[in-house]
């Protein structure tokens, strides 16, 4: 398994992660739909996960992969809460556009 992974050079993993991460950031910044933003955040998270797994494999250290499992579990919990909030927002505003949510200001 490890040998199989390491046949691809590490740089490629870094590059792929960077692209995925940047795509996620762009999605977060430029999209208005809250669900899309959520998906973009997941993309960023998984970009990082991928990187962690890659480094873990290259360093022969299982800690990185264990770490990823934790991240995924926490992310799942976070998504559950986030989607619940989104449903409530939708019920109140009939929209998932984040520009509508501008009433909390100083």
């Amino acid at each position, binding site marked *: 398994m490890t040998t199989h992974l390491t046949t691809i050079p590490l740089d490629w993993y870094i590059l792929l992660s960077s692209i995925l991460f940047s795509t996620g*950031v762009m999605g977060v*910044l430029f999209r208005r739909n809250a669900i899309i933003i959520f998906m973009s955040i997941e993309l960023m998270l998984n970009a990082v996960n991928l990187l962690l797994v890659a480094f873990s494999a290259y360093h022969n250290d299982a800690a990185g992969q264990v770490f990823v499992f934790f991240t995924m579990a926490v992310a799942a919990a976070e998504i559950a809460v986030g989607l619940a909030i989104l449903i409530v927002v939708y019920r109140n505003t009939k929209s998932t556009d984040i520009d509508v*949510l*501008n009433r909390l*200001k*100083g």
Partner: protein
Amino acid sequence: MMQFAALIPFFPLAGFIILGLLNKKLPKSAAGILACTTLLISFIISLAVFMSISGQSQEIQLAPWIDMGGFSASFTFLLDPLSSIFLMIITGVGFLIHVYSVGYMHDDEKHNIFFAYLNLFVFFMLVLVMASSYLLMFVGWEGVGLCSYLLIGFWFKNKSYNDAAKKAFIMNRIGDLGFLLGIILLFITFGSSDYHTIFPKAQGLMSGNTMITAITLLLFVGAMGKSAQIPLYTWLPDAMAGPTPVSALIHAATMVTAGIYMVARSGILYALSPVSMYVVALIGVVTAVFAATIALTQNDIKKVLAYSTVSQLGYMFLGLGVGAFSASVFHVMTHAFFKALLFLGAGSVIHGLSGEQDIRNMGGLRKKLPITFITFLLATLAISGIPPFSGFFSKDEILIHAFASNKLFWALGMIGSMMTAFYMFRLLFLVFFGTYRGDDKIHAHESPAVMTIPLIILAILSTIGGFVGVPESLGGTSQINKFLDPVFQSATKILPAEGASSISEMTLMSITIAVVLGSILLAWYFYISRKKVPLAEEAKLSPIHNLLYRKYYVDEIYNALITKPLDKISDFLDSIVESKFIDGIVNATGKVTEGVSGLMKFVQTGNVDFYLLAMVISVACIIFFKLM
């Protein structure tokens, strides 16, 4: 019997707890009986202890208390002749006054609380005299101060009574500070506050040791406050605001003698410091004369007795100061009898006249209040020092010792006892002789038996109480001296032996008696033959009379010198430092926070886009600078 001795203070404490918790749920009669019973049990045990003590001292350890580092203290009671005499006085006179209070306070709505306080007072007073260390004595000392405050201000709806209570408390605090500093110095010097450690160590010290002088003077400051000596005496006359049984119990018979007890207990320390002995004697004799002069002109029956108490306490300190420790304790005992009787008699008069206290509105009461009159007369004879009444033996013994030590002290004491006889007979004549001058609507009546029986018992004690101390020169055996000798012998050994007096004791006694009789005749001449009555409040008095009547303006002087400047400083601190400076800092902090928040709130636009952008840029910046 000794094994029960430790219980003596706890009966009144139990009484206090029961009365305090049940309060109004308990019928008045039950509360009175309960309070009296606790004292009676304590008295019986005290009596048994007194009978079986015979000179030795015994410590009873109850419980550990403080134990840290090099310091330890425990709840330990000490029983020796000195404490057993005080136990007898406190529980015996206390019991009689409790019984009297059942009648006196019968119609008061706070009847049960009154007895709760009285019981608590007795508990603390017993702790004070039974303590075996200065620290535990201090606990009792503070406790009786608290009860004194509560009972002076018992009718706290009257503002002046409340002020009197606060005055007593604050004045006592000044003394207490001295006492506490004395205890701390004792601990520094001897490494303990227990009597059984301090006194043997002190015996090895040189006379005139500076540390001992400092300790004894500080302890004496405490005694000055508690026992109302110059300059801390002004609270005691004001303390008469309390109910009359309180004046009798706390402000005549027991609490005010705590200072005497403390100095007597520390006799060995005082004996080591001639300076302190001199100071004690001087303050005592000056107070004795000073207070007596004020008492000459007062028109409130209780005020006369209050100044008389201050004066008699002065005599006791004179006795201590000249080394006559047992004579002083003897005087504490006889004074407890006759002064409690005088106060209770005054209370009976006040009760009979529905609250009248001004002797100008009394007169001719001997027919209407016959028992009160007879008992009051006996007490007056006792305090004036007419043989064979109790006051004669105790006061004379103090004066004889004073003569041997310093002729001036003796002369001043003589003048004081002359005035004592005069003001006491002035009081007696104005209240009980002549014709009634008060309101005709008031029908004077004798008090009920529950009040007169304690009067009669105290009158018997005032009459015969002196026979326990008949001096050898009069063919007696001076039993009280022998009884107290084990306590004081180590102190008296240190003191210089009294030189053989050139004048015999008999001569001195005759002089005293002659002088006293003379001043009684003078009082007779003024107030019976010429039927003089003190002038009305607005009348113009001669300068000296006015000075005395206004109590040398001491209250006014204290007010101008201490109270007013303190008020000014407090006002300044309040209006300038507090409201301008401290409040200013606090408010400025608030204003600044508010201003900064006002600026910062524009960042919070409510626009999610903006937040996200800000977050991404910030994270990018952090990473960028981190990598750089």
